[in-house]
């Protein structure tokens, strides 16, 4: 945690030396304090003088970590796949890709569904953001942007759109909000409003329950909550020791927490009101690329560069499942749950999407089709379809063909019926 990690969020008198300077917001013994960088270093120095060497601190840190693991394991009386033995095995899933949205000129880095279940927005490295009606394959809006790295986009509940842009040399670490309007000729790019500013690239964004607040995660190791109207920083979240790559809001009753995952291999759960880190999970072996909550809000899944996806239980405070296979070598970059939470869709860097049975821990099916790495998978809001964006500059929409009223089955049924009738005729005749 050096200067780069902390965002100089405020400028004012330091809590200890009262000199006006850029302040760092740090937590010492659960208290939030604002110190200037000189005082931070002095305080750390004092700690050293009190006889606590770096070695002793490191040792204490390690022993506490081990103790925590023991505590967690005490309540671990059964594994998920054991409990899931009584659940029915999934019938063979038949998921096919039937829509391909072409129109981007370069890698598609992000996509998101609109609340109306058929529209989606996608952003690409060619600097364009396109709003599609995925059902009719129409392009509804196209927003050209000045810089090339549009890393992420998200739809707000009502009608605005959020975009994260990063200048080519990392100079433009902004997050902007665009109000969508009907007029297709209107220059939407001119209406964009810059909301968030970080000291390093912004990796992910999400609206909270309304159009008015925005959560962002950044390469400077912090997450931040912004007021869209004024662009003011409402709360910042410190605790990651490396770039934060992804975040997701909890679908819980109180709606106050979110989870973030980063390059320090940790997934942290935060309280939006106080800015505190409530829980932390460290079991991945490489960068966590994506985190997503289970629909009930009691657990979340993470996708990582170590080619595994893991499932963490928040109430039991531990990892309960690892989704991996020897034949899966490349890292997972994105994940999402189906509506019931039974399936986990994960997009990998080997151009495939693996579908995991969350409860049993096995792989249900694998989807091919993309010609470059899959950057984002998202299930539509009503769970009818799966959208995926890829570096091959296309987006694909896939869905499941339930075997119930299959044309072929009906034909076979008809054959049997005819057969049985013929047999009946014969027996009657004789």
């Amino acid at each position, binding site marked *: 945690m050096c200067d780069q990690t902390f965002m100089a969020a405020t400028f004012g008198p330091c809590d200890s030396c009262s000199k006006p300077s850029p302040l760092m917001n740090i937590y010492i013994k659960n208290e939030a304090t604002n110190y200037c960088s000189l005082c931070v270093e002095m305080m750390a120095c004092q700690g050293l003088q009190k006889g606590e060497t770096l070695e002793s601190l490191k040792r204490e840190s390690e022993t506490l970590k081990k103790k925590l693991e023991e505590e967690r394991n005490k309540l671990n009386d059964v594994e998920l796949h054991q409990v899931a033995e009584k659940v029915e095995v999934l019938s063979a899933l038949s998921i096919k890709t039937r829509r391909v949205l072409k129109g981007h000129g370069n890698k598609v880095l992000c996509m998101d569904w609109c609340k109306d279940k058929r529209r989606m927005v996608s952003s690409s490295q060619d600097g364009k953001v396109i709003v599609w009606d995925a*059902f009719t394959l129409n392009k509804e809006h196209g927003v050209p942007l000045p810089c090339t790295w549009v890393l992420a986009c998200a739809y707000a509940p009502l009608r605005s759109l959020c975009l994260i842009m990063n200048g080519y040399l990392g100079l433009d670490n902004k997050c902007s909000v665009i109000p969508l309007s*009907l007029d297709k000729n209107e220059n939407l790019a001119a209406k964009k409003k810059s909301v968030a500013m970080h000291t390093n690239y912004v990796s992910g964004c999400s609206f909270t329950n309304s159009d008015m607040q925005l959560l962002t995660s950044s390469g400077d190791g912090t997450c931040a909550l912004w007021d869209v109207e004024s662009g003011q920083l409402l709360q910042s979240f410190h605790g990651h020791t490396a770039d934060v790559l992804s975040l997701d809001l909890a679908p819980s009753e109180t709606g106050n927490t979110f989870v973030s995952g980063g390059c320090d291999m940790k997934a942290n759960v935060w309280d939006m009101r106080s800015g505190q880190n409530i829980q932390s999970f460290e079991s991945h072996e490489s960068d966590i690329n994506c985190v997503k909550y289970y629909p009930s809000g009691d657990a979340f899944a993470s996708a990582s560069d170590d*080619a595994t996806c893991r499932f963490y239980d928040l109430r039991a*405070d531990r990892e309960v499942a690892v989704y991996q296979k020897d034949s899966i070598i490349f890292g997972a970059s994105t994940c999402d749950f189906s509506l019931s939470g039974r399936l986990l869709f994960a997009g990998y860097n080997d151009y495939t999407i693996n579908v995991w049975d969350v409860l049993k821990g096995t792989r249900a099916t694998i989807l091919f089709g993309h010609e470059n790495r899959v950057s984002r998978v998202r299930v539509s809001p009503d769970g009818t379809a799966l959208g995926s964006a890829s570096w091959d500059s296309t987006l694909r929409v896939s869905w*499941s063909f339930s075997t119930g009223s299959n044309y072929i089955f009906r034909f076979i049924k008809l054959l049997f019926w005819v057969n049985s009738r013929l047999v009946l005729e014969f027996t009657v005749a004789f």
Partner: protein
Amino acid sequence: MTINTLAKGGCHREQMACFRKMEKVIVAMQDPDMGMKMRNQRLLITVIPHAMTGHDIITWLTHKYRISEEEALHLGNMLVKYGYIYPLKEPRCLVLRPDESPYRFQTPYFWTSTRWPASELDYGKKKLKIYMYSLLHKRINHTWDFVVMQAREQLRSSKQRRKADRIVLECQEQAYWLINRPPVRSITLYCIQLYCVVHIEACRKALGRNRVKSSICLEGFLKYSEQYLNHDPIMQGCLPSNPWISDDTAHWTMNAEIVPVPTRLRVERWSFSFTELLNDAMGRKEFMTYLEKEFSAENLYFWQACEDIRHGENSKIVEKVEDVYKNFLAPGAARWVNIDSKTMDKTLEGIKRPHRFVMDDAQMHIYFLMKKDSYPRYLKSDLYKNMLAKAIVPQETKKSVFPFMRRQRHSSPSPAQTATQAAEEEGLAKGAGTRSLYSVV
């Protein structure tokens, strides 16, 4: 992976782990006992030993990892793409063909994880360093000869394989940059110490957490998935049909925000949890009707007002908090809500300095009051039961006889349009004189 590595044009950090895994696969393939069967392949007039066909590769992968042929083809393609296996017939085309085309293993010299300083990359000379091979010598003993032979062949046919080599050499260069890139962050001693202190605090706090037994938590997941199984279109399909399959938007029109008669699945979902009921606009309306019969509608109005404060614009917070106080909390208010005295005192204190979360305690109290009291009674009430009985179960549309006939897909109104209309209506209502949505007398 972060974009910082992308921007520098260097090899992605995470790919080193992938290369090691791929090398494991390659080494397993060359295992004398369990590995692939090599044979002599004929290429024009030369006979090349220790080669294999594309078909063999796929069969081996299918058996070893118990995967489908399609997946084995995909995995094999990756191995070829990253240069661990190269084709003999069309060296420029790095694709695995599942037929009799011959392939061979690339020498470890050119493996991506091999780290050679850039200065030693000499395109013309192929120096084989023996000490590097001694580690692998035992396992790939039989390929030693072909490695030597390959070097000779490379000198002979260097023009033919230039592209493949170039690609592999590029990977090597990337590996060089990976080693030699500048350190990520320079961390001072004090920073490490500070990190330790904070980490220790976090561990201590975590030790004091309340945890729930695994068996109880995991049962929760099973129950949830089972409950929502019928509502998951990917698992069970949806009625009347999945719009994406049949090109018929009936499913979406039937489940729109406000409909005259909701579907049965939707009404059933209201009984799953209180959040489900409140999140559905129709459900909330029905619940409001019920509460008005019970003369406790002010609870829901209060909860809605608090949500508005929490998620609304920063500039309007003070105004909204005042409104809420006047309508719900002040003694003798039109819609006075029944909160316990402790919470009431705390809230009234907080109102003196209003902020976004000042109503949270009171809102929680009322929320749980409704959840524990009014909600269960609503589910048992005639109002809900009638709704359930009235609810439609859409008929499953039969698939057309000619599955190739496609229906015309129509576009729907843009959500921006509906939002503008809603905003206009709200504006009109406000302009007509009512101060807020809740102060109807």
